[in-house]
């Protein structure tokens, strides 16, 4: 992912960051992101973030696991190595259900987590740490300079209007 430069303001109250994110959204900014130590309730609405699409991936992954399980148990037991076990049919579907079920869960879980990492562009080597308190008790708002509405002076004054504690110039975020 391309690195971006811009400005980041730091606040120390949850309610301030919600307000300021909302303000930037209403001003028509698109390329901005709040940085918080924990998931802040109401932040998606404030930043205009749409609901995550990962559940669809989970569904497809689970279906894939199910089909793989069905195919594999059938192929092993009825095609590649057919053995008569106690007179049961070669393709003994009810007996294969536990294995198919576990494979469904396994595929769904692992692929969802893989997708999460990809969506958050993780693992990221040596990320820029703007302020170490951002993972503890401070809240940041990053405005990308590529945003069509970006204007350093205007952004800074908007941030100051909302009682920003500090403004950092960030490169390669």
């Amino acid at each position, binding site marked *: 992912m391309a690195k971006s430069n811009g400005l980041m303001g730091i606040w120390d109250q*949850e309610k301030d960051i919600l307000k300021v*994110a909302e303000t930037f959204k209403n001003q028509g900014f698109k390329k901005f*992101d*709040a*940085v*918080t*130590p*924990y*998931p*802040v*309730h109401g*932040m*998606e609405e404030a*930043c205009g*973030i749409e*609901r*995550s699409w*990962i*559940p669809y991936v*989970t569904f497809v992954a689970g279906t894939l696991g199910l089909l793989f399980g069905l195919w594999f148990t059938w192929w*092993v*037991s009825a095609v*590649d*190595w057919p*053995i008569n*076990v*106690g007179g*049961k049919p070669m393709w*003994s579907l009810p*007996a*294969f259900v*536990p*294995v198919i*079920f*576990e*494979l469904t*869960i*396994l595929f*769904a*879980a*692992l692929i*969802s*987590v893989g997708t*999460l*990492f990809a*969506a*958050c562009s*993780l*693992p*990221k*080597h*040596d*990320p820029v*740490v703007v302020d*170490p308190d*951002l*993972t*503890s*008790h401070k809240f940041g708002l*990053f405005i990308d300079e590529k945003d069509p509405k970006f204007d350093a002076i205007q952004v800074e004054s908007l941030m100051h209007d909302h009682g920003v504690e500090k403004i950092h110039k960030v490169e390669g975020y």
Partner: protein
Amino acid sequence: MESKSLIDGNKSLKDVTDDIATLVETPPGLKWLAMLIGAKTVFVFYIFIIGIITFTGMGLMGVNHPIGWGTDIVTFVFWVGIGHAGTLISAVLYLFRQKWRTSIARSAEAMTVFAVATAGIFPIIHTGRPWLAYWLFPYPNQRGPLWVNFRSPLVWDVFAISTYATVSVVFWYVGMVPDMATLRDRATGIRRHIYGALSLGWRGRARDWSHYEIVYLILAGLSMPLVLSVHSIVSFDFAVSQLPGWHTTIFPPYFVAGAIFSGFAMVITLMTLVRIAIPRFKDYITINHMELMNKIIMTTGMIVGYAYASEFFIAWYSGSVYEGYAFVNRAVGPYWWAYWTMVTCNVLVPQIFWIKAMRRSIPVMFVVSIFVNIGMWFERYVITVTSLHRDFLPANWGMFKMTFYDFGVLIGSFGMFFTLFLLYIRTIPAIAIAEMKPMLSEINHQEDNHG
């Protein structure tokens, strides 16, 4: 329960970070070192015992005809059961929006991972040829290829346990990524590199959190049917056979309830110790948390008691001579002492929790939790050994005698479990920092609204 009663002391966001992170940033005290050395010694003993059994052979252990499943399988089921409460707390209570789970979820999940790791060793010892353990998995090979038999409950078990272990580790790890970033930002030098790598470069952007919360919910949703399936499948190892005492349909729910029961007892044991070793965690793992867990112990204890009674009723009601005999033999046969130890520990002892003062007394709950752990080990002993020792033909009857090596692996496994847990508590934030904070902000809101 209101969030207010779940965090004591007037904490700020920074206090929460400091309280939890300091534990992994300061040198350990003597208490911890003493505990680690103790656990480690038992662990080393365990490794030696396993080594001797591996090099000499399974003849060192008590298993023989007719009791082909002994300490290894009993203890395997015991440890898998312990793991279940961790997933129940971290996933199922999460789905039910039980806020009190937050402060114990990380440690409960750690308990799951370590308990499943401990459990996984037992079937491998039991195979007698642990160096061929990979034969349990289906993989293309040069013996035909020879595949596993998917109709066998033992193969279901391989899939269930390995999936459970994998998903538990992943769930645990995903939960701690943001906390690793917190530690990274507080650390310097080599620790900064280690926690930096473990945090995967997490930054905590709003977009990241949005995906993260959904995936956490999905993992919780997937873990719930998974945890129910795992102990059901473990119970199939017994129930799918024809043996009187094993061949019953009640086994899956009975095993799952027993697993949750024993697991919560282990959580109480561990949390009591954590509260003693780290006094400042008392603000997060409050007496209210402990009381709620004790209520669950009492409830599941009665479910297990109901299962014991129901088994007896069905054994009589079925009219099957063998089934009826198996149960009478459990209660008054040569293994009566194991049966009545089980009933006393699992059904009678937890009844003390009807009294509120007992539910909220740390020494009482510690003792009860130990009783429950002993009782649940005996439950698996009763199911496995008493059913096997007398089947249809008296010519097949026999007794099981535990040898030094049986006791060795049983006791040794606790060394492994506690060593892992002690190391965990000093290297990973034992309470989920990023999960505690939303609760704190909620408490502040409540206070704002109440004026």
